[in-house]
């Protein structure tokens, strides 16, 4: 009996050795992919450009690690008809296993998004177990996607990190952009009442200088990626762009503004009074009455006076009240312009369709097919903004009031 037990245990133990080191990957055998860029070639095939981290060159100054002499990243490209083919063809150029778990950026070229749309490519990223669906998606605006990931950046040595952090930082303090993840895009694509919207990135300067180390040895890098607008999608294809204040208007409507600034003219001076928005809440609602859609945007904002260029009596509640009305008008204008563009492009990126779905589920079943064209594009838009000035910063009245 005892012998049987012993034999059984030896067999079980041997099993664990048979497994070996299953799926074991040493760090030196991994090519850490930090960003993936997708372009289209002339024959209509995909060009995948992968940015790989050179770990030794990222952590500069480490003894025995190589010491930060070369590039922080290396970039390789491969062609293919699908993502898997690109990934496997990459092995003809790269010596290590491709490791996607830290690829946090997916750059899609404007051309690809316009011609083929994002529908045929996203499944691969959504399905792959190592690729995170929390990775950020951006559209390269007026630039090749490959050039964006090839450009070396200063401060953040890994360009992918720089772009992601830039998007997040800008989303938090300025608001003209959004950090859109793969899973957000997939969710919007499968939602019949909302269309996806993705941030765009420009490349400032030439693509050629961006590739060289000289680019980041200057105090002002000649080439650098830069945030540029929001890309509007319709049925998975890029239809247009929102830029500047229009982009911010769209972000307001999507209730994604965290902090930003709003300014109004006063006493003949342009942008004389500035409001620092510290919190806001936007609600949208929509109904259809007799075949016409009525859209409603309600914004509640709170902020501090950030700057005054003209003397103004901020101790007076009535003055504050008037300023609030002014800010409300400014915000309303931005939102209005964003919605107008979306209506022109006939794509409901704000999710008004979902609002109808919630308020009139029966009607929605009937109209969902042609919501964008027949209803959203012709809808009446009502915007109600409520601004509240909470504080005026360190000073109540500016020293400008006392300037003799």
């Amino acid at each position, binding site marked *: 009996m005892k012998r049987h037990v012993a034999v059984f245990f030896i067999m079980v133990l041997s099993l664990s050795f048979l497994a070996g080191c*299953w799926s074991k990957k*040493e*760090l*030196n055998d991994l090519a850490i992919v930090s960003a993936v860029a997708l372009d289209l070639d002339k024959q209509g095939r995909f060009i995948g450009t992968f940015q790989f981290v050179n770990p030794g060159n*990222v952590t500069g100054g*480490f003894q025995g690690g*190589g010491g930060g002499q070369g590039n922080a990243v290396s970039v390789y490209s491969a062609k293919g008809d699908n993502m898997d083919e690109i990934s496997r063809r990459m092995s003809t150029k790269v010596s290590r296993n491709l490791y996607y778990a830290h690829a946090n950026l997916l750059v899609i070229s404007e051309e690809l998004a316009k011609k083929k749309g994002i529908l045929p490519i996203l499944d691969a990223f959504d399905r792959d177990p190592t690729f*995170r669906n929390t990775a950020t998606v951006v559209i390269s605006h007026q630039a090749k996607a490959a050039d964006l990931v090839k450009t070396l950046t200063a401060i953040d040595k890994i360009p992918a990190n720089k772009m992601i952090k830039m998007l997040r930082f800008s989303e938090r303090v300025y608001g003209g952009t959004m950090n859109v993840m793969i899973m957000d895009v997939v969710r919007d694509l499968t939602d019949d009442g909302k269309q996806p919207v993705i941030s765009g990135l420009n490349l400032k300067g030439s693509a050629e200088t961006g590739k060289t180390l000289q680019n980041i040895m200057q105090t002002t890098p000649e080439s650098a990626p830069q945030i540029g607008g929001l890309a509007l999608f319709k049925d998975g294809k890029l239809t247009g762009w929102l830029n500047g204040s229009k982009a911010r208007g769209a972000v307001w409507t999507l209730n994604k503004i965290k902090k930003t600034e709003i300014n109004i003219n006063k006493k003949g001076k342009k942008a004389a009074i500035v409001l620092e928005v510290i919190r806001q809440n936007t609600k949208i609602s929509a109904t259809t009455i007799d075949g016409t859609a009525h859209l409603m945007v309600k914004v509640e904002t709170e902020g501090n006076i950030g700057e005054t260029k003209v003397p103004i009596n901020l101790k007076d509640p009535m003055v504050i009240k008037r300023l609030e009305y002014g800010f409300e008008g400014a915000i309303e204008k931005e939102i209005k312009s964003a919605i107008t563009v979306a209506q022109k492009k006939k794509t409901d990126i704000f999710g008004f369709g979902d609002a109808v779905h919630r308020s009139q589920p029966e009607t929605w079943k009937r109209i969902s097919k042609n919501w964008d064209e027949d209803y959203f594009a012709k809808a009446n838009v009502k915007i109600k903004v409520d601004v509240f000035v909470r504080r005026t910063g360190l000073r109540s009245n500016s020293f400008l009031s006392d300037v003799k």
Partner: protein
Amino acid sequence: MPSFFKKKSQKGKKTAEKQKKPAVSSPLSEVLEENLAVITSKTGNSTDIIIRRLKHSPRFKTESAIVYLKGLTDTQTVQEILIESLMKSDPVEQEPSSMQEMVEGYLPLGIMESLKDWETLFQALMSGHTIIFVDGFSEAMSTSTEGGEQRSIEEPSTQRAIRGSREGFTESIETNISMVRRIIQNPTLWTETMTIGRVTKTKVTIMYIKGIARDDIIEELRNRLKKIDIDSVLESGYIEQYIEDQSLTVFPTLYHSERPDVVAGNLLEGRFALFVNGSPFVLLGPVVFIQFFQSIEDYTERFYISTALRLLRVLIFFISLIGPATYIAATTFHQEMIPTQLLVAIAAQRESVPFPSFVEAIIMEVTFEILREAGIRMPKAIGSAISIVGALVIGQAAVQAGVVSAAMVIIVAITAIASFATPSFGIAISTRLLRFLFMISAATFGFYGMILGFIILVVHLCGLRSFGVPYMSPLAPFVPADINDTVIRGPLWADRKRPSFMSGQNQLRQGEETGRPEPDKSRQMVTKNEGDAQ
């Protein structure tokens, strides 16, 4: 409770009985010279056995002699009291019938015993008694004159405490017992002494508090001790290995302490203490796993601090157990779990390292174990050399040479410090062993393997017992009343009962009246005394 203790296999018992034949002890002779000749021949004429003949003692009509061991006896007592009173005393008026009558009430010494056979005589002689032979009597008297050089009471070197007694046990069993008696001044503190070791004849004393300790556990201890039939007992560890419940485990199922206050505290929880002559480590049992995370200071500090420290020790246990294993698993299987920046930093260090992480970890861990072993065994004078070699060669040079990565050195260092911070050495050495098993399982299956290892470990721990008490109690089986003193240490006033698995009839620790200290509601905050201000 018939099924409380595991039934031992019957095989061992029979052989033990066969060997334990009662030794036939020959009686003493009436002739003094014959007796002395037996002593010299049996001890091989050893030079430290002193035979002093008293030819003209007025006390004894016939010739007499005293025999004692030099070094084990208190020379002053033997010379100044014993020999002097024997030589200078008045002659006896009438013929005494026995030796006892002749010596008792006459020698100003404590314990006196009449010896009639050689076995007990030699035992008395070897433990430091002085034996008095008188010609014409077939018996001898032994007087207690134990003494000689001993280490004095010092601060314990293993279990240090900032707040707590500074006394530590010594090698003398009598001193050790007296130190506990001094703390628990109660007649219910019972002791039983037996001799174990065919050759060494070591004194072993059981100590427990009658009423608080469980009688069945004490009975079981007695039985287990009686079964021991070995040559030598040089340390309490010898006894420990013969009376533990399970020998196929790396975890200690008996606790040992060098501190009288720890022993007293454990006696008061219903445990027994086992003193072994020659060892400053007193065994305590039955123990539970969580006891190895306790320290005497937990009870002297307020419970917020103690609880925080307990939790820290549990954390320390886990770090020293799975620290390197987690690193191996994360860097070779689950790179997605490491933040990108950190991954890149670790990858940069790993670039120049020629070994897989597992081999790297094994190299560093084994090196550290070698260093530690060297540090313990080396003479103190060259101890500093070890730290130089350790810090320079292992710490810096290995990294600079690209043999190991700096991250690995950090992991090994944290693990090492964690294993030093474990309050009990017994549990620290078992985690040292298990750490390697976890490293192997992490290198084969990643976190999955570690979890498997953990499940096996927990099952094993739950299967252990110490003198019948479940090792993981009061966590498994869960005893809500005892949870107050486990990974947390509740306030002392809330700790009403003794651990329910160990204590006998007397379960309550404190009276009904005692509870949370609360001043009377009518009492106000004391106001400033105006009179003092002037």
